[in-house]
């Protein structure tokens, strides 16, 4: 339902409501005799919330349990059943002691470097390439689109062995540059931005051209406001993808001093390590992206409605 300045029945109704001090609050469920069939009944609503609560426990239960374990001290029995979520001997020491096994904060810094670099290059080059593919006419556009699309047929795992040979030939084996480089420009991201650019009215761009706007000015003032949402989706996915990646950095990096967080974490597992320390380590890897996603989720779910996640 949209509200406009025009005198539609809705706007009159809204105006009438604004005058009346009594506020009619619509219940979230369907009352008896109501014809609003798309609303659940009160009973249906209760069942729905119960199911939602169960799902929440299944989904966040393991994460909360791990968070609780990471704060448990040596006097807490972490093996008893039923488990307790509240530490009886609460401590932050696990976040310090985990460094006795791996330099986890250095690894987190490495991951952050790679992830931020990946976000910057992907957002920039996907915007440029997407604009050209979505809004410009040029010879060979179909070929470019085909080249980009071909990567969808190629899972990265298939080329991983020779990808490493390429990186080694560049002299980038065992460096963070080698981890970063292949993911710097994602073909998928270029195509996502191109799809968003197509939605911009061509007449508007043509008019700007007639008024003497340069390509750069058109991108800055007309394209950017329209694709901001999709670019933030690309940015979120680029960050998460780089931060979470495991197989590629595992292959590129051999010097433990250069590991990224996921590679270092995998070495934290094993039977010798205290589960409390492993828990602290997992939280160091998990909390930053959970915060990032919670802050950006509005853009993300808006992008979903634009069809960002479909392909």
């Amino acid at each position, binding site marked *: 339902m949209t509200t406009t300045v025009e005198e539609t029945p809705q706007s009159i109704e809204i105006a009438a409501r604004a005058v009346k001090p009594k506020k009619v609050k619509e219940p979230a469920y369907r009352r008896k005799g109501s014809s609003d*069939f*798309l609303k*659940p009944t009160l009973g249906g*609503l209760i069942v*729905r919330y119960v*199911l*939602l609560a169960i799902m929440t426990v299944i*989904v*966040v239960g*393991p*994460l909360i*349990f*791990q968070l609780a374990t990471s704060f448990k001290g040596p006097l807490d029995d972490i093996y008893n059943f039923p*488990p307790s979520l509240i530490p009886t001997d609460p401590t932050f020491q696990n976040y310090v002691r985990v460094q006795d096994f791996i330099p986890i904060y250095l690894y987190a810094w490495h991951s952050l470097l790679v992830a931020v670099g990946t976000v910057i290059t992907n957002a920039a*080059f996907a915007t*440029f*390439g997407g604009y*050209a593919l979505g809004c410009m006419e*040029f010879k*060979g556009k179909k070929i*470019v689109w085909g*080249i980009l699309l071909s*990567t969808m*047929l190629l*899972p990265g*795992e298939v*080329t*991983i*062995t*020779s990808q490493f*040979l390429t990186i*080694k030939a560049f002299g980038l084996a065992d460096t963070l540059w080698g981890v970063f480089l292949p993911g710097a420009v994602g*073909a998928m991201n270029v195509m996502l931005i191109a799809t968003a650019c197509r939605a911009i009215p061509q007449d508007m761009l*043509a008019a700007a*051209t007639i008024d003497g706007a340069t*390509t750069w000015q058109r991108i800055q003032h007309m394209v950017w406001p329209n694709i901001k949402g999709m670019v933030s989706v690309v940015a979120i996915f680029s960050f998460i993808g780089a*931060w*979470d990646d*495991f197989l590629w950095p595992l*292959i590129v990096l051999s010097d433990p001093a250069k590991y990224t967080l*996921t590679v270092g974490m*995998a070495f934290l*597992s094993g039977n010798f390590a205290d*589960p409390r320390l*492993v*828990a602290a*380590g*997992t939280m160091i*890897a*998990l909390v930053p*992206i959970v915060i990032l*996603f919670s802050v950006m*989720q509005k853009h993300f*779910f808006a992008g*979903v*409605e634009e*069809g960002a*996640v*479909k*392909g």
Partner: protein
Amino acid sequence: MKSHKWFTPWLLVAPGVIWVLVFGLWPFFNTVVLSFTNARPLQAGRFIGLENYARIGSDEQFGYALTTSLIYMVVCIPLLTILPLLVALLVEKTIPWITFFRTTFYFPVIASVVVVALIWSWLFDTKGLINGALEAMGVVDNPVPFLVDRWWLLITAILLTVWKGLGYYMVVYLAALGNSNKELHEAAALDGAGAFQRFLTVTLPAVRGAMVLIMALVAVSALRVFTELQVLSNGTGGPGGQSMSLVMLIKTVGSGLTGNVGYASALSVVLFLITALPLLAIAWMNREKEAKA
């Protein structure tokens, strides 16, 4: 009218095209070439014909890996096609707090597989919470070897994949449900169709496209499984490496200074051929969608 110099669009798409060529198509071409050689990381190798491919047929490890990957795919497809749809229907209506639930259900998706696998290996440890619960309820007398038995390891890893994938495919379904016709739902309800009947006659046809897409996506990502099995088995691939997936086998064979790049490349080509089928289905579907738009 000409609004730009001829090279401007090429300049703009250059990074994307160069990256695909250098880090996508070239390594693939190189993989195919290398698969006919006996290359090692430190030597170029010479042409040995189909020797690598002949070796695959008699390789016991390849048999295990193929079995693991195929079982992974066959089990994951129905679970990750049906369960996320049910979750999507649960969060579809805009009732109070629904954004909170949608965001929460997406958390496992953004978590690294390594992180989740580490949490899992603690939960499913012989002394872990799951075994504790099973013993307390009297279901088992001795701890279940979730992480050291070939088949239990596979089941545990699949559970992880399903738990982690729920939110992702839920969002795909949500997008499809958002496009479905609300009036149709109302009309069916007015005609006295029950909730289940409406699910069959209105909801299912609306999400059929998304469903096919998800099946293909799940198939491909299941064939690409690596991190779950690698971390849960502590890099061993289970007893005797029997729970290794194809990607794990490729990584084990091809990496390191003594790695057999030629054989790993041949395995990669086989993996590519297996994943190509569901991927081609996606590409075909996308073309149909684009034609409609």
